[in-house]
């Protein structure tokens, strides 16, 4: 067994049992509140809300939820993969270009290319100790440039409408094959994370790299594997999105990245690494999809969405900083002492 006292200490210092409970419940609570708001707020303004809004939210979740998980996993190991928005676009474009006859082949090539691209970035981060934000900024530019080059700098249609139809057909009113694939993949990763030593090693790597390495965690393999997974997950998100919408976009802008960071932070991931689970990230992403659908149902202009998502990202980032977390902990401690007295 590779786990030693040092690793246990790293994990323990990163997450106390109490913190565990809070992190696990808060994102799920957020998703539930957003789901309730999705029905209540439009009703208050006299608009009709149907179960179709939940279906739409889950359709968005199929693409963006996977991007959030891709980024969130790298954040758990204390890194940050800015290139997820590039591999999201690149995966979608490769799938559309190569998956006309065989959608599985298109998806497979997209996953392999983006996985290898992620692994290369992970190798640079792990081997040379380069700042992952700088490396993945370059990765973002390369992936986006490659997407635009493959797609002639414009959106590319996907002519296989049978696939689009099958992916979007409603299942039980709210699901579709598209959202079901994403949910199964996210659930599989959550099981791997929670039920195998992998999750522990990931959090240990994020909690303290040197101590983890001393304790026997194969840190470099974890970093490279996480970045490869990040590339593949983002590519799968892009593939599902492109097949589902029958279009691959050559430049999705920064909005998928804004979504992913906000979802990860709302899901209990710390920017310092070592904290959070795929379940939290998925719950954060789901809550954000409900919020986004709420704006669509309320027929809000695009700039309102930009204002809200930008503000939300700044606020959650500030609240996730160690200094603010320490202040919150101090206030809680004082409150507990007063209650005890």
């Amino acid at each position, binding site marked *: 067994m590779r786990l030693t006292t040092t690793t246990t200490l790293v994990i323990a210092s990163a997450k106390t049992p109490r913190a565990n409970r809070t992190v696990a419940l808060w994102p799920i609570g957020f998703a539930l509140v957003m789901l309730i708001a999705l029905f209540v707020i439009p009703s208050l303004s006299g608009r009709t809300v149907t179960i179709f809004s939940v279906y739409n939210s889950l359709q968005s979740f199929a693409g963006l939820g996977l991007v959030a998980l891709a980024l969130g996993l790298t954040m758990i190991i204390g890194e*940050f993969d*800015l290139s997820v928005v590039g591999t999201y676009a690149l995966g979608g474009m490769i799938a559309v270009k190569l998956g006309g006859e065989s959608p599985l082949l298109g998806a497979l090539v997209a996953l392999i290319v983006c996985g290898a691209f992620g692994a290369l970035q992970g190798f*640079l981060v*792990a*081997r*040379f*100790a*380069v*700042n992952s*934000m*700088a*490396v993945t*900024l*370059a*990765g*973002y*530019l*390369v*992936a*986006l*440039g*490659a*997407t*635009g*080059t493959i797609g*002639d*700098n414009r959106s590319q249609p996907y002519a296989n409408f049978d696939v689009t139809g099958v992916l979007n057909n409603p299942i039980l009113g709210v699901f579709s094959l598209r959202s079901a694939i994403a949910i199964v993949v996210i659930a599989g990763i959550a099981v791997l994370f929670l039920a195998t030593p992998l999750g522990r090693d990931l959090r240990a790597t994020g909690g303290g790299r040197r101590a983890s390495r001393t304790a026997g965690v194969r840190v*470099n393999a974890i970093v490279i594997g996480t970045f490869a997974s990040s590339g593949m997950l983002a590519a799968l998100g892009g593939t599902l999105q492109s097949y589902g919408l029958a279009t691959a976009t*050559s430049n999705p802008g*920064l*909005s998928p*990245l*804004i979504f992913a*960071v906000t979802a990860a932070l709302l899901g209990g991931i710390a*920017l310092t690494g070592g904290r959070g689970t795929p379940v939290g990230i998925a719950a954060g992403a789901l809550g954000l999809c409900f919020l986004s659908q709420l704006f669509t149902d309320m027929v809000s*202009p*695009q*700039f*309102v*969405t*930009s*204002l*809200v*998502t*930008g*503000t*939300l*990202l*700044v606020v959650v*980032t*500030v609240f996730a*900083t*160690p*200094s*603010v977390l320490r202040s919150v902990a101090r206030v809680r401690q004082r409150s507990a002492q007063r209650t005890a007295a």
Partner: protein
Amino acid sequence: MSAAIDTRPKEGPTAARITRHLPLARVFAIAFIILLLVGTFTTEGFYTLSNMRAILNSASVVGIIAVGAAAIVIGGNLFSMSLGTTVAVCAMAFLSLLGAGLVVAIVGTLALGAIIIGLQGYVVGRFGANPIIITIGAGALLEGAATWISGGTSVNPPPDSPDFSFLAAPLLGIPFPVYVFVVVVILGEIGLRRSVFGRQLILMGSSPKAARAAALPVTRLTTVAFVIAGVTAGIAGVLLGAFNQSGTLTTTGTLTYDAIAAVLVGGLAVAGGRGSVLQAAAGAILIAAISDMLLLRGFSPPLQMLVLGLIVGCVVVLNYVNSRGGEVR
């Protein structure tokens, strides 16, 4: 004949000996320069007076923003991802304010840029928030606010606006923005090297922990570094607004990434504390020259972005390897 392996260093001018004395980063830098020279000499129309003027003009706008970006990166706060959006908003503000007079428009635009980016710097410095994420969020916020205020349409100068054409016209055969670029670089270099602020900024970038231990005003230093970036974004906004005579959120293209690439190609350390404004300026000229060469060779904008990404990636890795003496982990 002895089968023992001679492990002594070879004295002859072998390739291994050369590379041992030339760090990996220098070998790649030399290869890059050779590639660039071959590329430019084989590009038709590159070495012409009009093209040199175009490169200088393009480099000046990117370079002015890169000076501000250098202040942020030297202070150890990585990059601002909202520089391009701020330039676009400043260009729109400049054209809108022209009705109140040219001086008011310029001063108001620079102040707007300083406030927009300075506020982000305050949040980063005060709370220790991640600069890239804060600036991405602020960029979205800024885009939303600009679309709300402008109604999503392009901004044009009012009919009674004063003459501002000199801001985009050549002066003594050289585009006006080049003069502004030179002045900004000189002021930036003097400010960084000769002022207390500059030295404190370098110290903060070298070691944030030491800076806090030395009771340096980290929040103020970070805010001022971002304010400088805001002012340079404002200057670029004025020049771009004057050149295009209209302003929209989409006019800036890849300015953010060009400025970041200029800073990195100039050799400034991503981790902060190392580099100069002059290096950033040189990086901007190099990036402008490469972009121009790619354009002349018929590279599409996405292909240009791909090349830019490759250059940034190589430079980032080589800078790290070089600064650690080739150490790997």
